[in-house]
């Protein structure tokens, strides 16, 4: 057959050589040129986003990234989600508890007890589940608007700020769904607490 004869033009030896040269070529293009060109262009067009979306407080001090959650030991701050890594952003992840894992149940029960102690005026049945579960990344910067609202009575009492003012603050810091439809409504805890600090210092 004529066609089969044509295949044999590429010898085994030349396959190794072409394979070697194309491997090296694409290591240079995909492994060096492409990421460096992307970095250069990203830094030029979107410097804020490309460097981690860092936020500053009212005094101009960088306090973190708006995308990365933080831990707040003081109960007079709005609290974020549970993080088994304690919001250490040098790593990421969670305990990976299976739904049937007794440790998970134990942790949730402890959270409920703690909630009852710190928030005597809000019954547990009103606490949204995101507030007592571990996020996937351990760095979730958000809580649901409902999870912010149930913390208002506690913060109002600790900071002596009217509940209505705090409600307004939560509303101002609630982000809608993307393009009005994708994802969930959410509150960025760091931005909310920055606004809270500003309100308290007035």
């Amino acid at each position, binding site marked *: 057959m004529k066609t089969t004869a*044509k295949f044999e033009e*590429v010898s085994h030896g030349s396959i190794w050589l072409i394979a070697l040269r194309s491997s090296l070529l694409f290591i240079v293009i995909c492994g060096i040129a492409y990421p460096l060109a992307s970095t250069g262009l990203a830094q030029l067009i979107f410097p804020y986003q490309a460097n981690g979306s860092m936020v500053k407080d009212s005094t101009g001090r960088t*306090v973190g990234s708006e995308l990365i959650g933080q*831990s707040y030991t003081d109960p007079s701050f709005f609290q974020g989600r549970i993080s088994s890594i304690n919001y250490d952003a040098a790593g*990421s992840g969670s305990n*990976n508890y299976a739904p*049937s894992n007794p440790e998970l149940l134990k942790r949730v029960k402890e959270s409920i007890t703690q909630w009852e102690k710190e928030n005597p005026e809000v019954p547990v049945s009103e*606490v949204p589940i995101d507030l007592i579960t571990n996020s*996937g990344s351990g760095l979730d910067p958000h809580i649901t608007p409902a999870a912010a609202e149930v913390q208002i009575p506690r913060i109002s009492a600790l900071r002596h700020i009217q509940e209505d003012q705090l409600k307004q603050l939560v509303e101002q810091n609630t982000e809608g769904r993307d393009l009005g439809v994708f994802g969930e409504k*959410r509150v960025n805890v760091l931005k909310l607490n920055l606004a809270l600090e500003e309100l308290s210092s007035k």
Partner: protein
Amino acid sequence: MDILQICIVIAVLILLVKPVGSYIYHVFSNEANRTDKIFGPVEKLLYKIIGLKNRSSMSWKKYALSMIVTNIILVAVSYVILRLMGGLPVNPNQTGSMEPSLSFNTVISFMTNTNLQHYSGESGMSYFGQMIVITMMMFTSAASGLTVAIAFIRGITRGGGGLGNFFEDFVKAHTRLYLPLAFIVTLVLVGLQVPQTLEPTVTVNTLSGAVQHIAIGPVASLESIKHLGTNGGGFFGANSSHPFENPRPLTNVIEILSMWTISASLPYTFGRFAKNRKQGWIIFSAMMVLFAAFLCLTYFSEKSGNPLINQLGIGSSQGSMEGKEVRFGVAQSALFTTVTTAATTGSVNNMHDTLTPLGGLAALSEMMLNVVFGGKGVGLVNMLMYAILGVFICGLMVGRTPEFLGRKIESREMKLIAITILIHPLIILAPTAISFMTHLGTDALSNPGYHGLSQSLYEYTSSAANNGSGFEGLGDNTVFWNVSTGLVMLLGRYVSMIALLGVAGSLSRKRTVPETIGTFHTDTKLFAGILVGTVLLIGALTFLPVLVLGPIAEFLTM
């Protein structure tokens, strides 16, 4: 709103199938077309650099050899880089080199498009490694997979025995598909706040005065090709649930469509090659039916939540939120999970270990069937293999020699297909069983009871399907797990690729038989039904027992 946003994403995907599928057809049909003007001169230069003088069509053996040799060289270079990484440049965080068994696992994992990660990106990989090994392999492994799928399609739709020229296909997959798309998606992701920098880890004093170290790096350029190439390996340990990898619901949708579109368009590309677009749509709809079933199972299971937590009396209307991010909620998490295990990407935007039992069952099942869209190459090729099996079974029932696309299916093809069908459960179930016979395996389990079995099962299923997601509680960075999953990934990728290229080579040398009144048509709804039935029958027979021991038992005892 949940159902609406899921339907919008699926609708956008369906709208993209025809244009993208046609584009891929034009890239690889090797007929002159408009895009040659833009890419032609660049490709000529690249052919010259790699020394490709004539681009003649290769026999299936030569095609497979070229692909494997290229992959071997890439693996060797990458292994050396990982072992020496600590002393190489672009390492602002002074990350150390990788130990041998983990390096072995990592290079196999990325070359086979699996992206199982037994290291954590923040501490285990320098920026140089992230770029020159991880990002590079995300391109080259996707291109290798895609070229094999294209060669397979050419083989079963065209005569003459040639499957095309591997090196030409490999170059074109980069220049006309992955590189331009990845560049665009990277910039869009950066615009939506995914970082892209070579600066080291940032240290800040938080609002409450504590010190926080924030790992950062060239994330966006990896993130784009990670999904476009259905790779799935994360820059960070938490993968696409990390707010730097996936900061908003909109980036989540972009990542879903990035990993899904090319895979879902390949059946249409196949239809163009077969000069029978309806045949392409029939394959697509069979995949979509299976996908929709698994999506419903995942979504409703996650939405109804964890009964053990719900009965404690908290406000549980959101569903199961353990291991999920607030910005995605259950809808965007369930959709991502179903797509990532269908398209064998393996990136995760929620922790699969924390999925409810039936949600985890859906993820496992998609990887076990390995035909629902699938990654570059693998999914469509496996589905076509089931199509051939389907006509074979139908042929036996009516006593005719089975035909597919006008070519007789005979014992040589069926033997190769039988190998492919049997190897997949073998390399999942045998290692899972072995892992329970030694403390080297059982020590790694982090969850007690039935879920522990699911953890080991998921790890090998994910390796065999070249998916790469995990029930990540598993303590898998040990020599036992690194070597065993490494071998499973190798077998899972190359045995079926070589066998199926053999099928394509054999079919392409056959004379087409004229259509008669007795010909069984494969472009009908009936055949779509037979195809789904064959897939479920074979899958159910093989995997149901182990699923009963794992996720189903967990579900029933909760």
